[in-house]
């Protein structure tokens, strides 16, 4: 077997599949996942139909219907994976330590990287299984239209990358802590920060809108770590109005004095109004979901998000591989042994 194949398929993967799928926990988790996702889909569907029945069709056409359903489902799916993934990986290494099986792995020729990789592959396969199981639910969206297959693919790519980064971070904490409990707490803390913290960052520390720019100002790059905004842009085909950006005091006073405000449109033009920038609904996907300023200028929201997630994965993987080996290759400080103590008095023969 060549080294790449060996790295991708090591014995730990097969062993993890066996032990994981033989317990009742996995079918239970799968059932809960599908029921929750299906339940939410049904609730959103029911709410929208009751709105239609009560108030008539208020411009919420079938296509918007599909977009809303898709948006709710995909964000709820990310939230569910935010709960499931840390649980899958945070005990992967620390559990081996607690069970006193890690030394038995360390004495095999398996490299520490292979051990981490095997654990990750097994855990992430379970996440992929959950994503595949959710596909039939997402296919319901196509009944209403408004969502193209490429949007579903991008959304699943963002969701998968998010789960991957949560998994990698979980493994990193599992390698760092000797016990599973602190590893799990840290992994959930990290998941909270990555999913919600970076999203909230956009509200707390928005970017000032440049009045001279002729394009839409992008939110801070760090906010793209959270999949929330990229997923909304994929579902709605539009940037999220007002998120992560703000007007300066001068612009606000200009607006309040009734002057007209000219802002760039998503299509690259400039539109003037008395109420602030207006984002026209875009027919094609790419202009509405493209970042025009900042670190990821010219990228799509989802592309930027995936790249950020993969960067987190790389850092977490490198950290895990560095911290896991029982005998580390790099030392900050090397302790010197004292001089030998005098030999004991020879025993009488």
């Amino acid at each position, binding site marked *: 077997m060549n080294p790449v194949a060996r790295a991708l398929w090591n014995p730990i993967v097969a062993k993890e599949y066996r*032990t994981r799928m033989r317990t009742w926990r996995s079918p239970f988790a799968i059932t809960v996942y599908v029921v929750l996702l299906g339940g939410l889909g049904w609730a959103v569907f029911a709410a929208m139909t009751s709105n239609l029945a009560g108030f008539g069709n208020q411009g919420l056409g079938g296509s918007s219907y599909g977009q809303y359903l898709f948006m709710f489902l995909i964000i709820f799916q990310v939230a569910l994976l935010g709960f499931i993934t840390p649980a899958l990986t945070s005990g992967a290494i620390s559990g081996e330590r607690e069970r006193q099986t890690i*030394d038995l792995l*360390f004495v095999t020729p398996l490299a520490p990287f292979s051990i981490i990789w095997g654990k990750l592959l097994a855990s992430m396969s379970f996440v992929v299984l959950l994503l595949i199981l959710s596909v039939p639910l997402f296919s319901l969206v196509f009944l209403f239209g408004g969502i193209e297959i490429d949007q579903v693919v991008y959304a699943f790519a963002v969701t998968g990358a998010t789960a991957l980064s949560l998994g990698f971070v979980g493994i990193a904490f599992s390698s760092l802590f000797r016990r599973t409990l602190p590893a799990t707490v840290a992994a959930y803390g990290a998941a909270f920060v990555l999913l919600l913290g970076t999203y909230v960052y956009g509200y707390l520390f928005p970017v000032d809108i440049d009045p001279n720019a002729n394009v839409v100002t992008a939110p801070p790059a760090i906010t793209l770590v959270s999949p929330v905004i990229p997923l909304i842009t994929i579902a709605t085909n539009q940037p999220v109005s007002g998120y992560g950006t703000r007007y300066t005091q001068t612009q606000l006073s200009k607006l309040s004095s009734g002057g007209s405000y000219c802002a760039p449109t998503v299509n690259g033009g400039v539109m003037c109004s008395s109420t602030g920038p207006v984002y026209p609904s875009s027919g094609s996907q790419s202009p509405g979901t493209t970042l025009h300023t900042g670190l990821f200028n010219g990228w799509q929201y989802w592309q930027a998000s995936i790249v950020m997630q993969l960067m987190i994965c790389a850092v977490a993987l490198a950290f895990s591989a560095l911290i896991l080996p*029982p005998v580390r290759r790099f030392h900050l400080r090397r302790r010197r*042994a004292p001089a*030998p103590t005098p030999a004991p008095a020879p025993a009488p023969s």
Partner: protein
Amino acid sequence: MIAVEGLTKIYGNRTALDHVSFEVPEREIFGFVGPNGAGKTTTLRILAALLEPTEGKAYIGGADVMKEREKVHTRIGYMPDFFGVYDQLTVAEYLDFYAACYRQPKPRRQKIVDDLLALVGMADRKNQLVDTLSRGLKQRVCLARALVHDPAVLLLDEPASGLDPRARVEMREILKELQGMGKTIIISSHILPELTELCTMIGIIDHGRMRATGSVRDVIARLATGRRLRITVLDAKDAAIEILTPLASIRHVEAVNGTIEAEYDGDEGTAADILHALTGAGFRVSSFAPVDGGLEDAFLKATSEEVG
């Protein structure tokens, strides 16, 4: 085959190993004896490349345990003193998993597993879940696990600890078989009689320092204070003691539980002379035997010395 040179390990302020050195030639069984906390496990973990020494070197078959870890791992079979097993795996799957970790080709793994289970006498438990086994059986499976890649060296850390007498005897039988297969074995244990019978070499460690090392006979000869005899005379025990005490070869005589225990300097000829002195004086001797506790004495003597 195994060489340890000036191995030192310091944890914080505590010196777990203090310039320990010894060598184990090929096909020898080296008994590593010492009280709890003496440094046996630390030494074995360093030899298994699981722990970095603060100073010193260790080699397995010429490979430096710190620099050539992969070579070392393919040469050793390590059985730790405490270990766990995975849930939801059968005995055969458990061994197959480790055989795969040791990169044994898939077509061979089935035969390896069958052979090893036969060796440790567990062929009939192949399909039992490994976490449901008793401690003794788990020890056997762990020993089989250490053999999946047919290593030349076995590092066994307290393989008989926590086992009942029967399981202990069975473990000893398995180790004898491995000895016959030509393995070089380091076995740490605090059960001395086992080691006396099994080992060809011995090392006594205490407070992180090697007190004595060499062949079992040499170590006993070096450390034992003298040979011992247990003598039973049918009558006039006190008179017999009076006869024995003045003899030049006798160091100490005492009455123990209806018998006489005599410590002497000399060889088997001296023992024959002592017997002759008793029978010549008209005592009826019903039993006259050397006390088999030389290693235990040597161990107690070596470990009772003050450190430093």
